[in-house]
């Protein structure tokens, strides 16, 4: 776990989601109108500060990928605003977004499918560099390519190879090289490790940490692997069915989770130490869109401490264990005055 940084109140957030919602239509019946909608993201506010890593965790279908795409303005929110260094970019056209695109990059789970199989590494990286940089001649371009590869731990000799000639870990390094080629200040990493073996995951985690130190990039790190999120993030947001249910500094969240869902989630994570086997409080049921309750807290059908009013009133995110430990639960304690 890392020290919190950049969370001072006077610093302007690098990117901020303000009460953002995204509603997708589903279930079109024949020619008739759309008759069902799902709220993939429901009134979420989340800020990422310069050089900070915010972890976004939750199970499949909780809306974490959608939220990442809203931050990048790859999706347009149904309601709410997205700000980049204070500037509202919610309604900007594709053309007017271009200068912001350079500052915001993304890396994906499967680096293979996000690389064009017909482009060599040189082509793929040059494309990114030329889009955003003024390089005067081929020599400058080559120098920049070599520096990029070295930065992500690959040999410049690999420049003329095609994606299929690389292992999974190397491909992810290329994906990262392409993302940092344009010198972004914000990077969304959407499950960047899930396709990689354990020993390679650690290499990529270290690379991300080094790049943040050298270049001051802020990360929104989306993952279902709580061990890695806890290790890499300064702050962590836990999502459940489209809502952020808990947001706190990483060490606080892992030491003292407050929301019953966070508690169950953390209790489910296997501990790699046979001496610390724990008695599990198993969460029954599964997350499914069909189980989204009409009213009240979205977690109440699976919650063991839910009461009658939890079924009717939706809890908002508010300070709980401490002023910067936010929890969306009616039963969470309020901070000591």
């Amino acid at each position, binding site marked *: 776990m890392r020290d919190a940084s950049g969370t001072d109140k006077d610093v302007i957030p690098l990117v901020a989601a303000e009460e953002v919602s995204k509603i997708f239509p589903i279930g079109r019946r024949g020619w008739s109108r759309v008759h069902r909608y799902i709220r993939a993201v429901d009134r979420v506010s989340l800020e990422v500060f310069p050089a900070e890593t915010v972890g976004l965790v939750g199970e499949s279908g909780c809306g974490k990928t959608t939220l990442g795409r809203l931050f990048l303005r790859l999706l347009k929110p149904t309601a709410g605003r997205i700000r980049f260094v204070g500037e509202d970019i919610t309604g900007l056209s594709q053309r007017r977004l271009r200068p912001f695109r350079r500052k915001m990059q993304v890396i994906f789970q499967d680096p293979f499918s996000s690389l064009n199989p017909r482009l060599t590494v040189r082509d793929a990286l040059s494309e990114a560099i030329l889009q955003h940089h003024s390089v005067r001649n081929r020599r400058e371009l080559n120098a920049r390519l070599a520096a990029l590869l070295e930065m992500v731990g690959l040999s410049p000799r690999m420049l003329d190879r095609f994606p299929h000639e690389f292992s999974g870990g190397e491909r992810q390094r290329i994906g990262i090289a392409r993302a940092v080629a344009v010198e972004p200040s914000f990077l969304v990493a959407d499950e960047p490790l899930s396709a990689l073996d354990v020993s390679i995951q650690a*290499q990529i985690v270290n690379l991300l940490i080094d790049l943040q130190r050298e270049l001051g990039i802020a990360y929104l790190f989306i993952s279902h692997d709580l061990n890695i999120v806890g290790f890499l993030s300064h702050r962590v947001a836990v999502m459940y069915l489209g809502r952020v249910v808990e947001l706190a500094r990483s060490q606080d969240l892992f030491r003292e989770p407050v929301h019953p869902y966070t508690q169950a989630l953390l209790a489910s994570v*296997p501990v790699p130490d*046979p001496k610390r086997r724990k008695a*599990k409080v198993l969460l029954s049921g599964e997350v499914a869109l069909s189980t989204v309750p009409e009213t009240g807290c979205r977690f109440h059908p699976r919650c063991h401490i839910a009461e009658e009013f939890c079924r009717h009133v939706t809890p908002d995110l508010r300070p709980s264990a401490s002023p910067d430990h936010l929890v969306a639960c009616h039963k969470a304690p309020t901070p000591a005055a």
Partner: protein
Amino acid sequence: MDVSLQSEAMLRVNDLSVVFSTPEGRLRAVDRVSFHVPRGGTLCLVGESGCGKTVTSLAIMGLLPKPIAAVEAGEILFDGVDLLRLDEEERRRIRGDQMSMIFQEPTTALNPVMTVETQVAEVLRVHRDLNRREAREQVIELIRLVGIPDAEKRLAAYPHQLSVGMKQRVLIAMALACRPRLLVADEPTTALDVTVQAQILDLLHRLQTDLRMSLLLVTHDLGIVAEIESLVAVMYAGQIAELAPVGPLFEEPFHPYTRGLLDSIPGAQAAQGGRLKAIPGKVPDLHSLPGGCRFADRCSQAFDRCRIEEPPIYAMGDRLARCFLCESRGRRP
């Protein structure tokens, strides 16, 4: 449960080698692998992609893809009988009956156009020769056993109407239909969310105890391994690198690869100045293996001999490891 090296074996694999014919030539995906699954106990087969753990489990089940893969040498003793000496018909009769398997991807393992009842009942009708009504009763019982609520109603469901966790439960029900003595589970929770993973692991553990079943659990996740009282075989590039009971293995790994895997998990070890202790490099290509130890190129403790000579397996009391560092305290078995 006795899960030491000396425990009585339900399944014993001796010097198993599996070769693949590929366009680039013959490739030995599994190389002289030996281990046993204790009777009523668990063996965890751990390793990263391409280490041969799935190929080993397919060889045990007799499900290697033909004709490109074949067992080259070795024995697979199931309750003392060498499965490799049986003909195809005899193996088919054992498979799904006395030993069965569950896979990683529950969605692709089920037939999308057959109901839950039809798929589970098929196993019983093939192996137990039951008629439709007899099978139905047992299917309902099985569905309850694996913790699916409203068993009677779920019988008519098609796979797409079930969540991933429920599909995995249906597959477990199919695997358990004939009360097998050995269950091979290949990454049974990899496709699942953590809370569902915890449910399924809990279910497997309960079923194993109740049915006194032996379990071969194939996984890449050392976190899962740590939670199960078991013998653990760590595989690397087609070979067993280390074999030990779970407690001692996590306490003091003997093979540098095992040590490296444990260090790669955040939280397992104290962070080194905010970074993880990663294993450098990558797994060697099985087509062009290094001359000596297969792990030597990535090993921080490797010395000259490791690059020239392949280390044998050394036995140290309850444990085995393929590493020269164990030479002084071990003996050649």
